[in-house]
């Protein structure tokens, strides 16, 4: 076994960071929805998958770079998120009996449905974006090589996070916070909580849409691509603390790093065991995650 060079360490740390930022943004969408209304979206991975397909086909048809498609895909995903809330989730919230399980299995059934629809529409093939400015280009940072698509993706994720934090400081952000603190009381100040919830779903879907758009630049898309990312997103959200944006960011980066280190030290096929183990250890110490309110 050769000594691990400083370059290897930096390379591992950087690739962990880049992937971690993407995990963080996927998790942020999930966390936002959960924090707002206590619903875990088990179809979150499928939203990521749809965003990746949307980017793939828009790129195929119009030859536009994923970076240009970003706002388009985000808008499509926003609309989809709103539609899912209006069509399904608002009904699930109105259920009187067994509400927790109904919410889990409505989004879970939706996930299966979307996966089936994707198989029907797109087939089972693995696809990747053909034309992109960044494809197959690498930046050389003093001997550490970074594929440009990953670099761009993590930069976009950072910007998206900045946007989400900024949104939290706006008046609408306050209304979001008020709704999550007392969803019934917001009617007393004239706020329609259904509208806030719908926008929350839209934003959550748009966040995962942004992640998907950038992901498709270096990751194959198939109808089952969402499952893996979704599992990581649940772990990230629970690790950071449900509903906490900063928690999602920190936990996402942490998980990206742990994954990269595990893959390097043990073997790549075990890379997720490391992150899951860290997650379990943290939850034993802090049952509501790193940033969760106890």
């Amino acid at each position: 076994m050769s000594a691990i060079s400083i370059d290897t360490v930096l390379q591992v740390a950087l690739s962990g960071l880049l992937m971690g930022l993407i995990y963080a943004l996927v998790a942020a969408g999930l966390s936002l929805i959960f924090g707002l209304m206590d619903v875990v979206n088990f179809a979150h991975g499928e939203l990521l998958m749809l965003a990746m397909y949307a980017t793939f086909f828009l790129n195929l048809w119009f030859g536009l770079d994923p970076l240009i498609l970003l706002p388009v895909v985000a808008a499509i995903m926003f609309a989809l998120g709103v539609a899912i809330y209006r069509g399904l989730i608002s009904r699930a919230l109105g259920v009187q009996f067994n509400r927790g399980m109904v919410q889990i299995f409505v989004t879970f059934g939706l996930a299966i449905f979307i996966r089936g629809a994707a198989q029907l529409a797109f087939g089972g093939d693995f696809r990747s974006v053909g034309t992109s400015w960044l494809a197959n280009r690498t930046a050389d940072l003093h001997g550490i090589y970074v594929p440009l698509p990953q670099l761009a993706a993590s930069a976009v994720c950072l910007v998206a996070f900045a946007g989400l934090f900024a949104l939290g400081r706006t008046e609408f952000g306050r209304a979001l916070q008020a709704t999550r603190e007392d969803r019934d009381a917001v009617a007393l100040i004239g706020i329609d909580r259904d509208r806030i919830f719908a926008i929350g779903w839209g934003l959550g879907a748009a966040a995962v849409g942004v992640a998907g758009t950038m992901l498709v630049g270096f990751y194959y898309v198939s109808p089952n691509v969402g499952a893996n990312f979704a599992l990581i997103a649940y772990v990230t959200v629970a690790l950071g603390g449900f509903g906490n944006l900063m928690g999602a960011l920190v936990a996402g980066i942490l998980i990206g790093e742990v994954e990269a280190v595990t893959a390097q030290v043990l073997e790549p096929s075990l890379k997720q065991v490391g992150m899951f183990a860290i997650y379990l250890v943290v939850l034993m110490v802090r049952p509501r995650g790193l940033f969760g309110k106890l």
Partner: protein
Amino acid sequence: MPSDGKIGGKSDGTLGGRSDGTLGGRSDGGKAGEILRLDNVSASYRGLKALQGVSLAVEAGEIVAVVGANGAGKSTLLRTIAGQVAMEGTVMFDGQSLARVPPHQVTRRGVGLVPEGRRLFPRLSVEDNLRLGAYTRRGPDRFAPLAQVFELFPRLGERLSQRAETLSGGEQQMLAIGRALMTQPRLLMLDEPSQGIAPKLVDDILAAVGRIRDLGVTILLVEQRLAESLELANRAYVLQTGRVVMSGPAADIARDDGVRRAYLGL
């Protein structure tokens, strides 16, 4: 006279049509006509018939007290008007029916409710709680009632950046009333404003209720403290097991032995 036909002062961001964006505009204190009317309203709450054929009317600019023992249906009455409880019968506010109007729309039409338990947003600051009250208002004057809220409750002005959950019970009640005033209501409904509050603050809060009326906001008050609320009110309704058993000028009700017996169990 809600004859200007404006809902919630929405055209100019004021209550009574004054354009300076402050509360009131009816400082003449009444004679503006009927603002709220309930006809034969029945409602169930948690499976119980909480209101049975309640009729009442509130004139613009007055304070109307609703008194009665625990479980008489007072809170349900306010919640019904606020659109939170399914009901039968008619509720007219400002000439328009409130039947099947969702709670947030009731607020937007100009009916403010300060509920039991206050329902503040505990982790938001005092300032955020207040400003959110004006969330659905538009226009440059939307935050104008702030000045009057601070005049009514100077303590709130000193605690602007504190989280709502760190306030004392009395201060929280002030904040809840202030937040409701920020929605620029023409009718303000208060559910037990003195509950769980240090005795020396109770007088302050009830005095503030009187001053809010003087600013031109009509008030429907549910209050356990019989003497104080009847002293403050112009008229009163007595509820017993979901029915109106008596109504009239507050002074008359206060003198009525039957009420005292039914209500206080004397």
